[in-house]
């Protein structure tokens, strides 16, 4: 499925890999960031989880968020995707404030997320799971007068998505009957199905073996061409190979943002998170 054209004017070739090169990350810096967080706080009662996060995602980049357990990474995703609302601070998608909007409206603005704990429709087929995402793009949610099979475009796009996720052979398998890593692929696929401008992946590789992880990294690389990606991951190999920039979240604050090399070299990060030994 070819991604739809991003809202703001930008580089004409979505496959332009020059943006992948961290050294030229400054091109596009004059465009409004795809996602920006300004001094976002979130407390649950007395407990402050997010204590002032500032973050900006550039157009087309792959941005990883790493940090020790309990740092607030999932909470951050929940705040951005609209599951919960910030105690204070602002979140912008492009130039639109989205803090406090509900998940549905945020999705309609072009943001989609996957979940750390697989969140599919277990009793429905893989095809159907994906089709829901595609259907909404065509505005079909309240249509009760025409069979869905008649909508060729929907069918075509769903098939295309199946292909890209390499799940075609499981087209009719029930979501609940897939293997774990296939479910994770479907999980990503469901987020992609709404053709988002910004994709949030919450630990997509959680619980996977080495081979499965490598496979999924390749899949993610393919699928996020021309989109902006924010990913939470624990696997450092994945993070360092996949991302353009990394933000390190510790106790609800971003202590560093930069390219993988910069992060590797950052003393604070080493102390707080990576420890003395750093994988080269």
């Amino acid at each position, binding site marked *: 499925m070819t991604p739809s054209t991003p809202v703001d004017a930008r580089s004409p070739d979505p496959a332009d890999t020059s943006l992948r090169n961290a050294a030229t990350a400054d091109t596009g810096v004059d465009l409004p960031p795809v996602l920006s967080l300004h001094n976002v706080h979130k407390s649950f009662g007395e407990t402050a989880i997010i204590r002032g996060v500032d973050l900006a995602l550039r157009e087309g980049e792959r941005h990883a968020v790493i940090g020790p357990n309990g740092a607030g990474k999932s909470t951050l995703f929940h705040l951005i*995707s*609209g599951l919960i609302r910030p105690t204070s601070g602002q979140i912008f998608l492009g130039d639109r404030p989205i803090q406090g909007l*509900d*998940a*549905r409206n945020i*999705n*309609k603005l072009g943001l*989609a*997320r996957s*979940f750390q704990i697989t*969140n*599919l*429709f*277990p*009793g*429905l087929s893989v095809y*159907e799971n994906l*089709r*829901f*995402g595609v*259907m*909404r793009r065509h505005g*079909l*949610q*309240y*249509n*009760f*007068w*025409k*069979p*869905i*099979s008649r*909508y060729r475009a929907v069918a075509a796009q769903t098939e295309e998505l199946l292909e890209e996720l390499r799940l075609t052979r499981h087209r009719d398998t029930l979501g609940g009957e897939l293997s774990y890593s296939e479910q994770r692929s479907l999980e990503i696929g*469901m*987020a992609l*199905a*709404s053709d988002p401008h910004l994709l949030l992946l919450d630990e997509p590789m959680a619980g996977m073996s080495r081979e499965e992880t490598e496979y999924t990294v390749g899949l993610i690389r393919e699928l996020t061409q021309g989109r902006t990606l924010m990913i939470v991951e624990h696997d450092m190999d994945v993070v360092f190979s996949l991302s353009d920039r990394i933000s390190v979240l510790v106790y609800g604050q971003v202590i560093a943002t930069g390219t993988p090399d910069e992060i590797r070299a950052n003393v604070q990060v080493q102390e707080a998170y990576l420890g003395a030994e750093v994988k080269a």
Partner: protein
Amino acid sequence: MKVSRILIILMLVFLLALPALLSTSLVNAAIQMLIAALFASAFNVLAGQGGMLSFGHSAYFGIGTFATIHAMNALGGEGLLPAPLLPVFGGLAGCALGIVAGWFSTQRSGVYFSMITLALAELLHALAPHLKGIFGGESGVSAMRMPAWGFTFGSSIEVYYLTLAWVVVSLALLYFFTRTPLGRLCLGLRENSNRLPFMGYSVHALRLSVFMISAIFSGIAGGLLALSNEAANYVIFDVNLSAQVVLNAYIGGVGAFFGPALGAAIMTFFGYAVSDLTRTWLLYQGVIFVLVMMFMPAGLFSISSWWATQRGRHAPAVLVRVLATWIVGCVLATCGFVIIVELLAHILAQDYQSLLVPGAAWPAVLLFGIQWQPGALLTWVLPAILLVVGIAVVLLGNRQWSYAQQEQAA
């Protein structure tokens, strides 16, 4: 799905030929069975497909009955809307009430939803007696079927065919619904409504839409009742009808499209067949329901899917033997249980109690053509034995089945 298509055609043929095979009173029973089947299928859109268990569905059925009755009185039966088409008002009334009630109910999900639907139906039930203009007070509202299209609709047979036509068309529409985007999203609501907002959907609006569809067809079913009974009374808003449709649907099995219709047909048929036992029939229904919930959670219809999945692994003879064992056991246990309950019902009834003379033996009870002496031990031991033996046979069937499964796995 070729087999099911053949079965549907056979069923249609059977239903078309039915009046020729039955007496008039049974034709009336068949009409009630059809109406109950449609109501259960409409209920299933919400409960089985949408995952929203409604305990107050009699409201949408009943409002349809009243709307159609009033339409029958208001419209003379000429012009664009002759009597046969009047259930459409039932559908409209169901739609209107469904939107209002559904808006409130779908604010919550799960058990809250169920409780709200019950409370809303009870609200209507409490309000109806006071709104005599609409609901007619204790005597209700009545109307007459006016002739149309060359039929007088005076005989049960004509009403039967009219009902059959409506039910077939409605079921076809309901089936069609399952193929539409909203119909598929309905399943999504059941499977994982939490994910839907993240895919851009408004769960409340979707739930409301599904509720509306369910209410429309419930209203049509109610309208068919108005046509056949030519009367409507506010007792229809009683919790009994709501309970009945829940029982029917789940006994039949909400997983299959025709499951609830099947359950409704069977239960309504039995209701008629054993009408002289109506005092205890409700008890039997409850027991059947609880047993199905405990031992056949997917309903009676699951027998066919059980057969379909197991046919690939076991020889038909094996399956038939196990099934026969189970059926024999159930029949025996049922006989024993029914005898005990019927004896109790007779003995505990007021008119029997008034015959008792202290010191004298209790009079015999006439049951199934035999005189049972309540004082005799055999009277109680015999059905108890039947019950125990029946249960033992069922357990034997279980053992046969697990044995067959072990053999197949080996």
